[in-house]
């Protein structure tokens, strides 16, 4: 059920997207919906980030993963336990670019019925790195459609990415890696009893959506008869705010574009906002300098305490008898 609903939904969306090739529908699927989705994306992400940013960070609560900065002869672990802005930037760079915390992943197992052992488990880290980085490169490659002339860096990345020199047009390594990584992530979510148990529709839907986009993109490039010039004309028009809708673009492309539009529009309302959220996590982006620099809580308020005077009033006789100094006899 949790898998079927999103799978059918993505399939249905793709079919809807095919309508883009129907006469007169090119404007809707090729112009209106992509613009709408992009507007939703921009507005939504800004809204989400502002919503987080507007909530204060009352306490400085980094999770420390290494030696603190204390005495000069004890070596601080700067990237795992940063003490200032620069070391925090280092820690965040490792986190955002290389998924540092995920790299730590272990797998625990009970052996011989009584002994717990922990092994390094890199599978999730590898799959996550492969998926996110190949997605980024795929996105950069798509700049070819949005620019004229195409920047050298895009051409260079394409060349490198196509190093296998298989097929015509060349099959990019990242296209394959992206799909394989997604397939693994899906297989893992379904195959592990625990992960399946915690998974929601909102976890399967983006996976199917990304798979749908990847596969349809592959079909557009390699299998379907595609009017590349027409596509570039369309995309260039979109990015230069002078939309044109060439007649000759195939249905599969519209299916692909519609899934992308759905993904982009859905992004801010889903778990995919983790892309922005990862930058804001108070357990990662704060320096562990709590005792050196005072952190201010903007909404701090006075609380009811038990003052020393009341304490002594209640216990004065006992304190005097026990020889403890008091303020008032």
């Amino acid at each position, binding site marked *: 059920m949790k898998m079927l*609903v999103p799978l059918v939904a993505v399939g249905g969306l793709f079919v809807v997207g095919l309508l883009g090739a129907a006469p007169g529908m090119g404007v809707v699927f090729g112009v209106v919906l992509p613009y709408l989705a992009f507007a939703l994306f921009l507005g939504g992400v800004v809204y*989400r980030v502002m919503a*987080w940013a507007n*909530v204060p*960070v009352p*306490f400085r*609560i*980094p*999770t*420390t993963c*290494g*030696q*603190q900065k*204390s*005495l000069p002869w004890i070596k601080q672990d700067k990237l795992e*336990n940063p003490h200032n802005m620069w070391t925090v930037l280092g820690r965040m760079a490792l986190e955002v670019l290389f998924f540092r*915390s*995920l790299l*730590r*992943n272990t797998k*625990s197992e009970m052996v011989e019925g*009584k*002994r*717990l052992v922990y092994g390094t488990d890199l599978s999730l880290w590898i799959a996550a790195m492969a998926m996110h980085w190949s997605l980024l490169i795929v996105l950069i490659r798509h700049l070819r459609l949005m620019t004229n002339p195409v920047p050298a860096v895009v051409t260079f990345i394409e060349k490198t990415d196509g190093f296998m020199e298989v097929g015509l047009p060349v099959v990019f390594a990242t296209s394959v890696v992206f799909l394989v990584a997604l397939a693994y992530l899906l297989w893992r979510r379904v195959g*592990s*009893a*625990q*992960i399946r*148990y*915690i998974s*929601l*529709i*909102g976890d399967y839907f983006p996976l199917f959506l990304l798979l749908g986009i990847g596969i349809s993109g592959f079909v557009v490039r390699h299998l379907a008869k595609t009017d590349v010039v027409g596509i570039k004309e369309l995309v260039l028009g979109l990015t230069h705010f002078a939309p044109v809708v060439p007649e000759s673009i195939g249905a599969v492309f519209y299916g692909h574009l519609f899934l992308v539009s759905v993904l982009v529009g859905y992004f801010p*309302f*889903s*778990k995919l906002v*983790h892309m922005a*959220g*990862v930058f804001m*996590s108070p*357990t990662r982006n704060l320096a*562990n*300098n*709590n*005792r*050196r620099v*005072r952190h*201010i*809580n903007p*909404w701090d308020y006075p*609380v009811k305490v*038990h*003052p020393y005077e009341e*304490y002594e009033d209640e*216990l004065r006789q*006992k304190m005097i008898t*026990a*020889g*403890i*100094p008091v303020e008032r006899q």
Partner: protein
Amino acid sequence: MPKPDEMDFYKQEDLLNIDRRPPETPWMDTPVDVRPGTFIYPGKGKNLKVLDLPNPREWAVTDDDWKLPDGWKQTVLDGMAERLSRYRSFKLFMDTCVRCGACADKCHFFIGSGDPKNMPVLRAELLRSIYRKDFTALGKVFGKLAGGRELTPDVIKEWFYYFFQCTECRRCSVFCPFGIDTAEITMMGRELLGLLGLYVNWVIEPVANCFRLGNHLGIQPHGLVDTLEFMAEDIEEATGIKVDIPINKKGAEILFVTPSGDFVADPGIYTCMSYMLLFHQLGIDYTWSTYASDGGNFGLFTSHEMMKRLNAKIYTEAKRLGVKWILGGECGHMWRVLHQYMDTMNGPADFLEVPKSPVTGTVFENAGSTKMIHIMEFLSDVIRHGKLELDPSRNDHIRVTLHDSCNPARAMGILEEPRYVIKNVCNHFVEMPENTIREQTFCCGGGAGLGTDENMEIRLRGGLPRGNAVRHVQEQHGVNQLAAMCAIDRATLTTVCDYWAPGVKVTGISELVANATVFDGEKERTHNLRLEPIPGKEAPEDADEERMAPSHV
């Protein structure tokens, strides 16, 4: 017949038979299974009244009706809204989880129980499902399809059960790619429960004590004098040294604050005795306080507000006594509060000076604002400067390993100081496996207000990963002592070791230091601070007795 609150009630083979397969029913449709040994008794009305907390009453976890106050649902939702607008951590951690499951088998309670709701991700989902339903656009429209669920009394019971099966140890947050910290989730969950008057007595009674009398155990000022005098007598018996007991001494240089557990509980008392001895030897001008007689703060396990209410007395007392700076003893959660919250909550401590060791002259710039340092920072500096004469051979009968306590490890990163100290006072130090120490250290299973006997099954299960690692070094390297710089550890790991690694004793680190220190004017040291004969150092008559005693191996 042993009872569920006793260790012997549980057979090891039963607890080790851990089934990680989730139930057939989806988790939202699987109610909690409340059985003796897995929950803590409710907070008593009288304690809630001392603290002006809502809905004081008598009730039981096994009751069908928990006597929730009128309008409880709105109270919870309003409470959530308020916290979502005050804590970025809370809002962010509600939004960014992708349910990748990296945290799942990082929790000691999940490893030891296999209960899927002890996976940190699902513990958070208990709250997140309500958040999605009532606070997100998709959840408001699509409800259950978007992972939302209705807030019902069963949800409240589930929260109570599972937020008191989390020790806020933050191990999962080390592994989370977004730094989601279940301690934050649990703290919010407990605050929301508190709005309905749902507390556990093992937390709220100490809080009430601490509020009124300055420490969780409810020790009155004269009682503290008696306790410390009693310790001084034992110190004299072991070492021949008479130590002073400065209490509420105005104008002392240093206020010393330590968790109150070390005033009464074995083996914490030996750590406390060690402080007195070491301060005497180093000639430090310090004072105890009866008003600030606990650095521990069970307010952390109750609410941010309660944490602040209890913590306030430390700076107040430092100001009243006119000390220059504050020194803190070996404790775990106490140091989370002192390091990450105290200055923000009750500072600025502008009436104090930056801590400067009277022994070495070292200025502790790292505590330049809070003006409080950790006893291990202090002692490692003292030892580094050679200001203590040490004879580690006095600890030669000990093969010791170090349990990094959760909060000092993951909320401070005080990892090398204790190791440096131990290596200078013990010749036989062994590390446990690397996935069980430092930032990856496993909780004792009894932190964050879970260290009572009522939930013995959960404690033993949660203590399994730590106990197992101790057992490993016991078998491989003959380890017979587990050092821990945390008062809760000293109390709860004793049970964990007795159960999972029998034969291993728990000690504080300062105790190891005092036992290895050659004190000025000491008598021949034949007994350690526990008044046990030191093997190889027995007085001649003791050795004779031992030789003549029947050997039974």
